[in-house]
């Protein structure tokens, strides 16, 4: 009989005591195949896709009509001191011509209007000429004009206009009428309180200067004190000059409005991506969101990889240790 046969023939049997101990064990009922990891992965993937679709759906809502928030205009009393009222940028539908919405000026208040509008036209060169002419006719001027016709691309013109405050509404209406209004942004800054503060400071400085000059006319004034008063007088005159300059700038800002106009060719606009339909926008947004999720996942993997390597090395080391332990 060979050694192997001997080993098999005389293999030890488990004692009865062990049989008795083990037979007392009763397992819990089985729940079927192991699907938990698969379910977790499937749920995570479904949540990721669902989040992307929801994001795409929410961001692909139809764009709003041009609108201005009239509730924020100073005339309604929402704010009365030097605040800036920004009107949400709005995009006009491609097919319809939308008028530039400008809130009515607040009577008796100094306000600076800053407007940005983008208009799609057939002929950018001609529209640029007409825009500068509109500004001139309304008492304003074109501060800068940048007109370019890139190779293989449609022309575009960037124009900075200064328009008298009382004519800004007409100017915006006429400029918007050059073509199809694409987008507009309008902000109104109330300068009345700034002007009032500057005027008060100027009046105070003038009173102070008058008092200093009266004091200096006194012949009994000691020399040391005279020098001191002369220094204070010079400082007050300098401060007055600064305040006067500041008030002039405030008045100038209130008197003229700044209009940033972008004229673009219809061909140029046609290449823009916002021509996608709702479903297209939703898909585009969802894919973008999925890309962000993928980036986050990749980042997490990069962060986790050193730990995974360390765990793998630890596992290998333990396996070798076990081999050494058993082969001694």
């Amino acid at each position, binding site marked *: 009989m060979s050694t192997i046969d001997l080993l098999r023939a005389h*293999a*030890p049997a488990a004692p009865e005591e*062990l049989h008795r101990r083990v037979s007392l064990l*009763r397992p819990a009922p089985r729940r079927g195949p192991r699907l938990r990891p698969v379910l977790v992965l499937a749920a995570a993937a479904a949540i990721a896709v669902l989040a992307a679709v929801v994001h795409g759906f929410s961001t692909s809502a139809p764009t709003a009509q041009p609108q201005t928030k009239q509730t924020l205009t100073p005339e309604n009393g929402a704010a009365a001191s030097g605040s800036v009222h920004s009107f949400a940028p709005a995009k006009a539908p491609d097919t319809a011509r939308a008028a530039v919405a400008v809130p009515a000026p607040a009577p008796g208040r100094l306000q600076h209007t800053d407007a940005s509008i983008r208009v799609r036209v057939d002929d950018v060169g001609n529209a640029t000429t007409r825009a500068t002419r509109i500004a001139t006719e309304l008492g304003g001027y074109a501060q800068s004009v940048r007109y370019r016709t890139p190779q293989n691309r449609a022309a575009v013109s960037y124009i900075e206009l200064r328009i008298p405050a009382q004519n800004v509404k007409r100017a915006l209406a006429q400029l918007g009428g050059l073509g199809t209004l694409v987008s507009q942004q309008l902000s109104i800054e109330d300068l009345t309180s700034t002007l009032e503060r500057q005027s008060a400071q100027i009046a105070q400085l003038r009173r102070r200067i008058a008092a200093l000059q009266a004091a200096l006319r006194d012949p009994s004034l000691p020399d040391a004190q005279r020098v001191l008063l002369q220094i204070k007088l010079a400082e007050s005159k300098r401060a007055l000059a600064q305040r006067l300059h500041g008030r002039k700038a405030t008045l100038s800002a209130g008197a003229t409005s700044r209009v940033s106009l972008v004229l673009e060719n219809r061909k140029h606009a046609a290449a823009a991506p916002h021509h996608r339909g709702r479903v297209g926008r939703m898909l585009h947004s969802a894919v973008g969101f999925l890309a962000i999720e993928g980036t986050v996942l990749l980042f997490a993997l990069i962060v986790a990889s050193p730990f995974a390597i360390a765990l793998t090395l630890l596992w290998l080391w333990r396996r070798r240790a076990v081999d050494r332990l058993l082969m001694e």
Partner: protein
Amino acid sequence: MNAASTSLRLPRAGAQPSFDAVVAEQLDAVYRYLVYLTGDRSAAEDLAAETFEKAFRSWRRFDPRRSAPRTWLCSIARGVAVDWFRAETRRRRREDAYAREQPTELFGDGLPGPVEAALRALAPGEREVIALRVLLDLDGPSAARVLGISQTACSTRLSRALKRLEEMTNDVDD
């Protein structure tokens, strides 16, 4: 229980055995494996009980499509035994001298003395592979899976262990 007859009653992979059936069929096999691995019947008994307790707790996670019950139980038994070896090593270091009375028949009931002595002289890892492949009749892939090594390494280890066993048995006979 004869090992050959045990192997005939092994549930095929993919079937859904009951825990009681697995206990009835595999207890002897697990015990033999642990006796060979530890070289200590008393420890093997405790470790076998612990193995089945662990198997009992993780019975829900056992997937018969991935491995046969015997392979799965031997993997658990190996983990339990490795922990025991570690504890034993620490204990031996502490006590400095390891002199423990062992029964005369350790690896088999009625096994000839030279074979018994040769088995005692083998390393636990060598006895382990003999137990898996010879006593428990595990095939190459299953044994390699239990040991956590490749099939080639498993075959090499078995070949060397059997060769050493033969040599030492012959030496004792001479």
